[in-house]
């Protein structure tokens, strides 16, 4: 905890010593207003819409909670639960895989070239379209596709595994490779920042693997881990590419519900669902901003 506490105390000392507080520069002020108009206002409007009445010809500006009471109607409750279940499961799997992998790369690999190379391989696909990265699976996982015919050839299966497409399994298979980088990168970053001496000290003092992970790595890497959870969970909650291409209409997720509601101009109900999704994320974000570890992480960022 040493480095982080030093970071916090420095900030407090500066404030206590009465260092002159600079006024934010004009670009900062202009940007803050601009961002409020572009990003915050639409979200506030969504919240307002969820309390309006849905009329025959569109939105009526009368207070109503019907959108909220209809939240679980038409099997939408089950869809919400399913989406959160899949999103959280995928996020947890990514974490379990990314943590030891990131630890190995950050703490056991001395070569800068290998670190940079792996990071480039993991982050570059983020800028590619999700569509391009997913569409080929529909061929590969099909009944006479690469996986099934390959497994048949080596005699592992007789007859294709048809659950590779258009099932919940295929949703997992599609999501896992797409959202690995978003979990890996922040964790790797926070692990790199941990002083090697803490790890050596833990082992010199006879600490076990669990001690190292529980008392040193997890607390010190907490900002990166929380960031990884958010960067992974948020896009999965709104993902419509994987469910569209690999779910094939058989697995209905929140994105499918939202799309069909919007195409039918059911704006108040869409707004209510949107608020539920954003609300869950906002709660996560608040927890994150209140955590001491993260605030210290931000202090660290300034230097």
């Amino acid at each position: 905890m040493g480095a982080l506490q030093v970071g916090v105390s420095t900030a407090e000392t500066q404030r206590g010593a009465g260092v002159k507080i600079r006024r934010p520069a004009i670009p900062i002020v202009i940007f803050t207003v601009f961002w409020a108009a572009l990003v915050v206002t639409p979200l506030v409007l969504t919240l307002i819409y969820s309390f309006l009445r849905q009329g025959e010809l569109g939105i009526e500006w009368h207070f109503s909670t019907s959108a909220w009471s209809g939240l679980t109607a038409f099997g939408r409750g089950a869809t919400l639960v399913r989406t959160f279940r899949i999103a959280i499961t995928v996020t947890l799997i990514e974490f379990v895989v990314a943590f030891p992998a990131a630890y190995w790369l950050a703490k056991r690999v001395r070569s800068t070239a290998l670190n940079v190379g792996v990071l480039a391989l993991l982050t570059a696909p983020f800028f590619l379209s999700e569509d391009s990265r997913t569409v080929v699976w529909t061929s590969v996982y099909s009944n006479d596709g690469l996986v099934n015919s390959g497994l048949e050839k080596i005699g592992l299966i007789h007859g294709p595994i048809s659950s590779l497409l258009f099932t919940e399994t295929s949703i997992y298979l599609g999501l896992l490779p797409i959202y690995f980088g978003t979990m890996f990168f922040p964790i790797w970053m926070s692990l790199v920042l941990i002083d090697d001496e803490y790890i050596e000290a833990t082992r010199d003092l006879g600490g076990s693997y669990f001690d190292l992970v529980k008392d040193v790595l997890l607390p010190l890497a907490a900002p990166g881990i929380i960031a990884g959870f958010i960067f992974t969970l948020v896009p999965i909650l709104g993902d419509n590419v994987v469910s569209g291409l690999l779910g094939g209409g058989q697995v209905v997720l929140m994105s499918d519900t939202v799309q069909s509601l919007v195409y039918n101009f059911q704006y108040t109900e869409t707004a209510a669902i949107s608020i539920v999704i954003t609300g869950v994320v906002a709660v996560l974000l608040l927890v994150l901003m209140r955590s001491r570890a993260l605030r210290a992480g931000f202090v660290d960022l300034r230097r």
Partner: protein
Amino acid sequence: MSSQPAVVSALVQPSGIRGRLSRASSAFEWIATRLGPILLFAFIFWIWFPIVDLALMSINKEPFRGIPNGSLTSGWYRSLFSAMGVTSAVRTSALIALVIGVLVAAISFTVARKFGTVRHRGVFLVYVLLPVFVPGLVFGFAVLIYSAQLGISLGNTTVAAVHLAWALPFGFLAMLIATSRLDLRLLEAAADLGATRWQVFRDIEFPLLRPGLVSALLFGFLLSFNELVRSIFVSGQTVTLPLYMWAQNSSHTSTVPLVYALETLIMLGSLALIGVAYWLLFRGASVSRLGRNV
């Protein structure tokens, strides 16, 4: 023996504690040095397999099984240019992406330079990153009803608006890497030596921040060019390339191989730009500096 403190018993029975330590360490060593890299490279393979396979399928006569075979063809690429809507979608996307790239670079540059004057930097950073915390479909819908209230018709403007909100946080982070590396003493030294504020900016600050600026431009361009989820509800008559491909892919028709060819071209172009951006941002960086600066 049991009444002795742990330290003493450790001294008396060194083999005991060393045995426990080595057992714990060996499990740890196995996870750290075997499982970690195996998982990592397995996932790298899983991530890159569809990207490489897509490129292979795009030159294959029968791409529907995902298995590369000997019968190669350039037919998909040739028919690509005569396919309806492709060229206009490319033009639309390129134009919007270019505007977004320039806007992202300009705004990120102006704001990141003054990041030091912000008092609550953590809060401000989260504020800038806000669009990243909002699922894409939700934000697209929010902008849809927002533009309805403002009376703005759906089309290029609304698509550009959601792209800007999505791409700016990443451009800003790229600029922060550059500004956090900037040695402020250089600026002070230049001023002390009699340089005007404009000269300090033009001769010292701007050249040092240029890698971040170019990276922000490239990130803005790429994120806009490949953006789909946020555009769906606000596109109106505008058909961007991802929207075009999404429609083709969802239709499960025989145009799919054309899309493979198209997506391959886009990916090759995108990868080249990503390479340039990374090279600009991270050349000469050591691992520890990399972590500290990002």
